[in-house]
């Protein structure tokens, strides 16, 4: 592997398809990641709409239960590994070198490789839909033995796809860490790093710590399925619950991998539009780090009903509740940043404000779920579905949208259409709440998750949720149109872009030149 920085000062991008296939430019690769994740977002979204359409009314109308399970599984996997994670990596690729004053990512060729693995991984995963026996149908958490002894034959392809995604993520994380640690401009000390860079640094360490564990657990599955071992099979001395422990040892930090960069984006945007410095920068960094550390000791709160001993339940309950403290600090800091600021409400700010409110609601339901005795009632119901969609959709996805609108003028050199952006925001905001808020109610009232059909008392809220999902889903087309018209022709953006913007990324021209910071800037 060549680890040198391919710095070529004199030529611009190659032309045609080869520009994208062989590019080592962080901006090109960032763009590829972002388009790829948007494509996956639409694909996973279509699956979600199919799920919601089936759940519009009680009874089976559109799809059969087995295909419904394939849809929930693929929706989860695609959204987690195909939409949210690559979107954050794309933003990291674009922005981290610009924010730390580096000419490119530390390992540009590996960067190309980590992106181009992804389309193959997802092509393989989506191709399972057309295989005999269908796609994986055991949920994105793929609990054994449903995913081993009882899995469709396509599970092997699923395992390889997960391996490939894991390799891609690990390489991406290595690249990001090397860039942040080694390529900072002179004077850019660690405690001067923008929060987006800080949160990504911590996220990258989380990725390196847990993606290999995911690779390990799918490898064990592979061995159980094809090589006769019994890691998860009680008959041979294994234990299906072990699967859950290993999976959630990966899975819980994974949840924070999907939210920490979002914290970073929001911490960039709120100060810009409040025209006021971020409140409590240092405590933000410490809070992020402590959330990351705590994420390793809370995994069994996903397993309160598997029959843990009392002491185990108590430990994981307390540890989980503790996470509320640093998360609370973050929310308070954001609010304190807005307090006595001078706020304007452009689209990125609207998304960021919605993020703060709706993510906090997701945090509250998370706190409720942490209470082990009550979790016996919540576990595996729509209350959980509502909770994690609140932290992932108006959490992670809104933050990505906010970041996209925020940096789009810097990327394209043009302003997007502000009115259209606001329409997109309000459709999203209303759609998301109509979709996911009623899920709290049906979950509390007793509807289990992952069922294709339900009892009559859940009918009304399910119908409402479906309407919301379609509003949310189709409003993404507004975003797509806005982005395309912003790239093509629009109002040229200034270098600063926003009145209150701050940081190195705003010192380069708009659009950001193909090669930036070839000479490192001096940071005071």
């Amino acid at each position, binding site marked *: 592997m060549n680890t040198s920085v391919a710095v070529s000062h004199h030529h611009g991008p190659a032309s045609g398809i080869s520009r994208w296939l062989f590019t080592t430019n962080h901006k090109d690769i960032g763009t590829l990641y972002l388009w790829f994740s948007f494509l996956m977002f639409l694909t996973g979204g279509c699956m979600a709409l199919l799920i919601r359409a089936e759940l519009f009314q*009680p009874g*089976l109308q559109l799809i059969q239960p087995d295909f419904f399970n394939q849809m929930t599984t693929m929706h989860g996997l695609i959204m987690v590994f195909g939409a949210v994670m690559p979107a954050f990596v794309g933003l990291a690729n674009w922005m981290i070198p610009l924010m730390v004053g580096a000419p490119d990512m530390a390992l540009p060729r590996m960067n190309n490789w980590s992106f181009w693995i992804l389309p193959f991984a997802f092509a393989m995963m989506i191709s399972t839909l057309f295989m005999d026996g*269908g796609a994986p149908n*055991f949920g994105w958490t793929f*609990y054994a*033995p*449903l995913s081993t002894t*009882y899995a469709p034959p396509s599970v092997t392809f699923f395992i390889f796809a997960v391996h490939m995604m894991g390799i891609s993520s690990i390489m991406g994380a290595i690249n990001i860490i090397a860039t942040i640690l080694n390529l900072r401009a002179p004077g850019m000390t660690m405690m001067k790093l923008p929060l987006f860079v800080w949160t990504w640094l911590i996220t990258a360490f989380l990725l390196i710590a847990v993606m290999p564990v995911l690779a390990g657990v799918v490898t064990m599955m592979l061995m159980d399925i094809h090589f006769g071992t019994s890691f998860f099979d009680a008959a041979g001395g294994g*234990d*299906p619950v072990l699967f859950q422990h290993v999976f959630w040892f990966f899975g819980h930090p994974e949840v924070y991998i999907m939210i920490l960069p979002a914290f970073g984006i929001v911490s960039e945007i709120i100060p810009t539009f*409040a*025209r*006021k*410095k*971020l*409140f409590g*920068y*240092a*405590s933000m960094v410490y809070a992020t780090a402590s959330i990351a550390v705590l994420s390793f000791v809370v995994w069994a709160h996903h397993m309160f*009903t598997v*029959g843990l001993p*009392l002491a185990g339940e*108590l430990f994981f*309950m307390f540890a989980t509740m*503790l996470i509320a*403290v640093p998360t*609370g*600090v973050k929310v*308070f800091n954001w*609010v*304190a940043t*807005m*307090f*006595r600021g*001078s*706020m304007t409400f452009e689209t990125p700010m609207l998304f960021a*404000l919605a993020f703060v*409110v709706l993510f906090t609601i997701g945090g*509250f339901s998370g*706190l*409720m779920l942490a*209470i082990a005795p*009550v979790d*016996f*009632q919540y*576990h595996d119901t729509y209350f959980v579905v509502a909770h994690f969609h609140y932290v992932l959709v108006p959490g992670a996805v809104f933050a990505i949208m906010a970041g996209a609108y925020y940096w789009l003028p810097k990327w394209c050199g043009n302003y997007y259409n502000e009115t259209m952006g606001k329409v997109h925001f309000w459709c999203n905001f209303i759609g998301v*709440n109509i979709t996911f*808020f*009623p899920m709290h109610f049906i979950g*509390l*009232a*007793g509807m*289990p998750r*992952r069922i*294709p*059909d*339900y*009892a*009559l*008392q859940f009918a009304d809220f399910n119908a409402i949720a479906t309407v919301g999902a379609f509003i949310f889903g189709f409003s993404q087309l507004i975003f797509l149109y806005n982005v395309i018209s912003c790239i093509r022709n629009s109002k040229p953006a200034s270098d600063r872009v926003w009145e209150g913007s701050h940081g190195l990324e705003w010192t380069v021209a708009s659009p950001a030149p193909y090669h930036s910071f070839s000479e490192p800037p001096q940071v005071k």
Partner: protein
Amino acid sequence: MIKTILGFPALLLFATASQAAWEVNLPRGVTEVSREIYDLHMTIFWICVAIGVVVFGVMLWSVIYHRKSRGAKAHNFHENVLVEIAWTVVPFIILIAMAVPATATLIKMYDNTEAELDIQITGYQWKWRYQYLGEEIDFFSSLSTPRDQINNAAVKGEHYLLEVDNPLVIPAGKKVRFLLTANDVIHSWWVPDLAVKKDAIPGFINEAWTIVNEPGVYRGQCAELCGKDHGFMPIVVEVKAQADFDAWLAEVKQADQDKAAEAQKSWTLAELMETGEEVYNKACLACHQANGEGIPGVFPGLKNSPIALGDPGPHIDVVLNGKQGTAMQAFRDQLTAVELAAVITYERNAWGNKVGDLVTPAQIAELKE
């Protein structure tokens, strides 16, 4: 039932305008534990609401008053150690206040001692088996909602998808202990009104308990994704007063004897075909489908299959003992001798299969011994 309205005024409007069955909160339940859980849930909910009101209140205040369009000028503070320590310590204290009652309830839930009745619950794809330990009672409980209702060909009943052929019956006012395990994949046994949810794991045994004082019917569902028909394996618990429970026990035992006797009488092909179709629809249709053609690549068809058309021996064997490494279960204990004989006969003579032979209940009864 107390309704607590969370959230949006718009939804609130809907909620009151619609029918009474519109539930928006955890059920209070019918056991001491379920009520404690409900109270805990409400306490934490209101704490969250209070915190939310303060945080969102300050935020809303800023959004309204500290906006540039009103001429607000940005202040320059960005740190305050005292404030930062306060909003780290105060939440911590609130958390401790939450943890204390939660711990007490959890300890109570883990007190499995001194049960008066033990019931072994085994999860199957996609039904439940209930065995009353120490009594000779052992039966399966599966969804009784007709397929037509699920496929929208008939009007859905009141307890659509929450009704079973044989409910679990327990005595009122007695501590009942459940021993949970599974036969194939992981299931989870959940009845919200009892606040009992526990995973049923193949090869391992878990326990849970309940004391229900009020006789009544309480409904729940499997809560862990367990394959295709995960959404179609409900739980119904019927709580009866002790005297009624004893009568039920006697009745079930009598019925078992009657079934054994029934197997000995002689059956005609037509009778077996009629019973067989009923049994097929209940036990086989989910996988092998109504037309007997199965789902290609997943579940094999029975129409024109060599097993259904060949010698009855292997056919009987596969139905009674299942087939290793596939989803085909052993139906020996799940069905009575009459049902087994009928369904095998049916499979050999339906959808154009015309073997014409007759597998008698007596023959099966002998094999079942």
